[in-house]
């Protein structure tokens, strides 16, 4: 396993996440796509830390923080989805169209 392998996997993960976030109609699906993008970044950071700067820990530290922050963000997102679901009985993005621009 070389750095290139890790980068390829994380790039793929990022693209899958990006594709999912942009094309999903279900808000939960969009959230899953965004999580994949976060994880691609985490994988990148850990791999760079391991292969390019094995003496330091900066990459791993950023990874830990990112995980915690992403979890907090998802909690808020799910709470908002709950609020929407209670009011409108839907989690599909195209049904949420009260505000128009």
């Amino acid at each position, binding site marked *: 396993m070389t750095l290139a392998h890790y980068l390829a996997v*994380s790039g793929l993960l*990022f693209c899958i*996440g990006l594709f999912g*976030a942009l094309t999903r109609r279900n*808000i939960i699906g*969009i*959230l899953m796509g*965004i999580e994949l*993008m*976060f994880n*691609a*970044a*985490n994988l*990148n*950071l850990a791999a*760079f*830390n391991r292969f*390019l*700067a094995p003496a*330091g820990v*900066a*990459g791993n*530290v*950023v990874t830990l*923080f*990112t995980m915690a*922050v992403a979890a*907090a*963000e*998802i909690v*808020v*997102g799910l709470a*908002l*989805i709950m*609020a*929407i679901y209670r*009011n*409108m009985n839907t989690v599909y993005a195209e049904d*949420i169209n*009260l*505000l128009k*621009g």
Partner: protein
Amino acid sequence: MQGLSIPQGLNLLIPEFGLSVMALALMVLDLFFDAKRGKALMALGFVAAGVALGSLGLAYNAPEAYQGLGALWAVDPMALFFKAIILGTTVFVLMLSIDYKPASELRHPGSFTALVLLSAVGMMLLVSATDLLMIFLSLELVSISSFILVGYERRDLKSSEGAIKYFLFGAFSSAIFVYGISFIYGALGTTHLIDIRPLLGEGPALMFLVGCLFLVVGFGFKVSLVPFHFWVPDAYEGAPIPVTTYLSIAPKAAALGVMARVFNHLIPHTQLDMQTLFAVLAVATMTVGNLTAIFQTNVKRLLAYSSIAQAGYMLIGFVTANQLGREGLLLYAFVYVFMNLGVFTVAMAVGNEDGYELEAFDGLCRRNLGLSLLMASFLLSLAGIPPFAGFIGKFSLFAAAVKDGFWWLAVAAVLNSVVSVYYYMKIAYHMFFRNPRTLEPVRTEILVTGTLAVAALGVVVIGLYPEPFIAMAHLSTEFLPVSVPLP
């Protein structure tokens, strides 16, 4: 104890710590206060923000004791200026929130205040941050608390919808932001921006440039640059209007502050050949903002697009990446606080009873002449018409662009200002030349009146006597560390 030493320069962040503690205390106190006495908690938060604002004055007067470099942060004149803008906005937004609704309709005023304070702390840390990790964390602190604030009226469909849209765009852009951080870390092996310059070597690597572009996406979302602006009108319309006021001023200023620190000082965008990119972003932002604002019939949405356009003007000061440009940016950001605070406060006073459609402003001059005249002066200031403050701000920005050879940027901005006069005056037309549906006078609560008075004073005084404010902005363009090591 070994290994547990206090990081250097921690004392520089005392205002932030104080506010964080206050926010947490307010969340706990919220459990013990019923709705009727809940406004006392808002007042408490208001006082805390005021005290923190006052303590910044101390830092201004005694730079050797209160300014300096920390492990991951720098408290310098530039950061202090933006912190003052952020805290000033916080103070007035809390004032507006106290009068926003009768006590019986408030839901958890303590938590609301706590969230406002926490996002203010996030912004204050953001404008000081010199490390990518610190930037990311403070950006997220701002984002997450603003998501909740936008969706604060849980039973209001519009509020939830605005919040979920804001959230999806926000989470999406922060994922891209972290991906960018990972590339920069991969290219240089550190996240500490002060050490980055010597590592860049001859030309910056491709991976580093890609990382920087991803960072721009993350910042652009917060500043609401076109093409990352889609959430703005929906979030602004859905949010309770004090929150809209807050979002339209503070996070924009803070994100511009950190952009200036990162791309004008630590890794100047002129060295990365990104100057044209930012110039194009600025023109796109003001043009799209202004042209879309023309077609809006809802005041909140109209002001949302107007604030997008205003962000485009402010970006001009960032494009030139020299002291003159930064001076314009600071001056305009300062003026912008008063103008935008003013228009949103009037919109709140009118809209609270009559809704936020443009028709609510019909014949306002016969229902409350003072309010309509104040609104007209704020609108003229936003459009950049002398003798109001907006003119001074725009003039210094455009002059900086021309001096740096970006005459096409200045021409585009002037043309845009002309377009913006049309929709700002559309509101004035509704106020002065349409018949009111009702002659019932519009009442303003005491704190709303106070906010309006301060905003009006700012807009008029800076417009007529700008010298001390220009001098203040000039003094505040300094960064720490003074010289970043060159490659």
